[in-house]
């Protein structure tokens, strides 16, 4: 015992850069505060807790902006935790997504008579995990961040405790999520075994050298990519996604399909571009197959869905396929890696805006029709013209029609594939092009339903949209339209936020 104390006295604490950690510190403070306030607020004023959480998320954006203005790259713990432009862009994006999801949830959770305070707390914990993930450049940090963002999400998916569908959603998400992270961990243990380090930059150095040729590294990279393919719901690891999205409460579905998926992509980008860039021949073909399968299967199955949430679930599977395209071609040349990163960052930002918007509309319409069937959208224009116009905007943006945000995102994806220029990359661009045409059918069918079909039960009473939901709609619609008209702004953001790949 004495020896232990002696050793402890000699312990030198690592240098902590509190400025670099300030977004995480503020967010942690907010989520503890939210949990405490929830204890003392009585049942009728629980909405205050959600509002407090929303304000807290906005406050956490302030240090992110301050760090961005400062502009210096900060690195801690031997390069395990890095705050650079890439990290700051995604921290800002995750906090913005969190704010919009909190706006969407306010009335939904209250009216459903669910536990409101704990809901905000878990949502904030998950966002904290994503904010940490943006900076994680180390296998252990990535693993901890991944679990911090996933475990609260498992609980949120099953938030409607008495509803068997919600139970099933939570169970399927949990089992496949846990299996995926276990497989990913096994891959990480192999990569650690081959390189003797968990810091990605050190792994990157070694993988590019002689160590990279070991089969241990090949198997490790393969298992890690497969683990994250589950997280981002890439085909053939997508089976949980439609069921979980349908069964979970709608704001949680929006959160999972946008934030949790972006979290997976952020981790993948860091692993691939910082850690495994030297072994392009391992992950390049793997991503090529995943991207081609994910786009095609997602779009073809989405065509024959009759429930709008399931349709959007398969649409988000297909969108993940588009985001995988730049991964597949990024190893072909150093220039291709640059355009690929810009394309992915821009796509993730625009995808967040348009998908959250589409889910807000679904929530607004479901307040009246109590149904998720596409047929219940018949004649929506007759009694809710505003919602119809916005839904059309989001659907056409998802389909990639100018001048809405989605077209610019798709353009960059095609550009990254054509920049790479190899025959396989061009073939992938062709597959993506064919898929965009297929996708137009089901996105346009929603628009057709809303504008041209008769109202199913002749109930033309207007839809009351609560103020927070209207705010969420306004923010997302504004983002989609502004980015579509003035895309240089996000493109510049994407160019600035490159990871340094070796």
């Amino acid at each position, binding site marked *: 015992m004495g020896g232990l104390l002696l050793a402890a006295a000699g312990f030198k604490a690592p240098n902590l850069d509190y400025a670099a950690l300030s977004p995480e510190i503020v967010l942690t403070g907010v989520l503890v505060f939210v949990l405490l306030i929830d204890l003392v607020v009585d049942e009728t004023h629980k909405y205050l807790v959600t509002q407090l959480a929303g304000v807290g998320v906005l406050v956490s954006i302030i240090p992110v902006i301050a760090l961005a203005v400062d502009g210096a790259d900060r690195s801690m713990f031997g390069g395990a935790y890095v705050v650079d432009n890439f990290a700051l862009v995604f921290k800002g994006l995750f906090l913005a997504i969190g704010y919009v999801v909190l706006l969407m949830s306010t009335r939904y959770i209250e009216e459903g008579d669910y536990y409101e305070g704990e809901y905000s707390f878990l949502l904030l914990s998950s966002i904290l995990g994503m904010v940490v993930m943006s900076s994680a450049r180390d296998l252990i940090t990535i*693993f901890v961040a991944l*679990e911090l963002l996933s475990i609260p999400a498992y609980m949120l998916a099953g938030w409607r*405790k008495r509803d068997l569908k919600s*139970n099933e959603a939570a169970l399927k998400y949990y*089992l496949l999520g846990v299996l995926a992270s276990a497989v990913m961990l096994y891959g990480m243990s192999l990569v650690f075994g081959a390189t003797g380090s968990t810091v990605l930059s050190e792994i990157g150095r070694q993988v590019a050298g002689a160590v990279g040729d070991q089969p241990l590294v090949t198997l490790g990279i393969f298992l890690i990519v497969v683990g994250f393919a589950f997280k981002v719901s890439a085909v053939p690891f997508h089976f949980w*996604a439609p069921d979980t999205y349908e069964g979970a409460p709608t704001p949680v579905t929006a959160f999972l399909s946008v934030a949790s998926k972006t979290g997976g992509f952020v981790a993948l980008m860091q692993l691939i571009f910082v850690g495994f860039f030297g072994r392009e021949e391992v992950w390049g073909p793997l991503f090529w197959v995943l991207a081609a399968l994910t786009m095609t299967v997602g779009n073809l199955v989405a065509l024959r869905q009759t429930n709008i949430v399931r349709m959007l679930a398969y649409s988000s599977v297909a969108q993940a396929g588009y985001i995988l395209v730049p991964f597949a071609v990024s190893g072909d040349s150093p220039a291709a890696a640059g355009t690929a990163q810009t394309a992915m960052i821009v796509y993730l930002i625009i995808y967040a805006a348009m998908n959250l918007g589409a889910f807000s509309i679904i929530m607004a319409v479901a307040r009246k029709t109590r149904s998720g069937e596409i047929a219940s959208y018949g004649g929506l224009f007759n009694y809710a013209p505003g919602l119809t116009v916005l839904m059309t905007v989001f659907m056409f943006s998802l389909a990639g029609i100018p001048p809405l945000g989605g077209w610019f995102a798709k353009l960059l994806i095609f550009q990254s594939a054509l920049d790479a220029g190899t025959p396989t990359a061009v073939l992938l661009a062709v597959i993506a092009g064919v898929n965009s045409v297929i996708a137009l059918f089901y996105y346009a069918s929603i628009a057709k339903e809303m504008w041209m079909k008769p109202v199913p039960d002749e109930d033309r009473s207007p839809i009351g949209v609560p103020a927070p939901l209207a705010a969420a709609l306004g923010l997302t619609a504004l983002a989609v339209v502004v980015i579509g008209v003035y895309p240089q702004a996000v493109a510049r953001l994407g160019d600035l936020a490159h990871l340094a790949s070796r």
Partner: protein
Amino acid sequence: MYLNQFLLLAAFLFCVGVYGVLARKNGVLVLMSVELILNAVNVNLVAFGAFHNTVVGQVFALFVIAIAAAEVGVGLAIVLLIYRNKQSIDLSEVDLMKG
């Protein structure tokens, strides 16, 4: 030290675990199979850590143990929820929605 023995043990545990997750129908046994995979990871990490003569492997293993405990806590809660609503933890009966 022979590294291979530990790696073979871990690979065996990993395969048993994956088989268990895919084949078992009982919710609790599936959770135990996941634990098997995570323990395969731990064996790997500690063995590689000793091989490279670094403490990082053991630190990673401690993180895995702690977080696996939290994960299984949530998993058991979800299985319990399903038991309350259905009086069964047979996972093949949880099929209201078809992927």
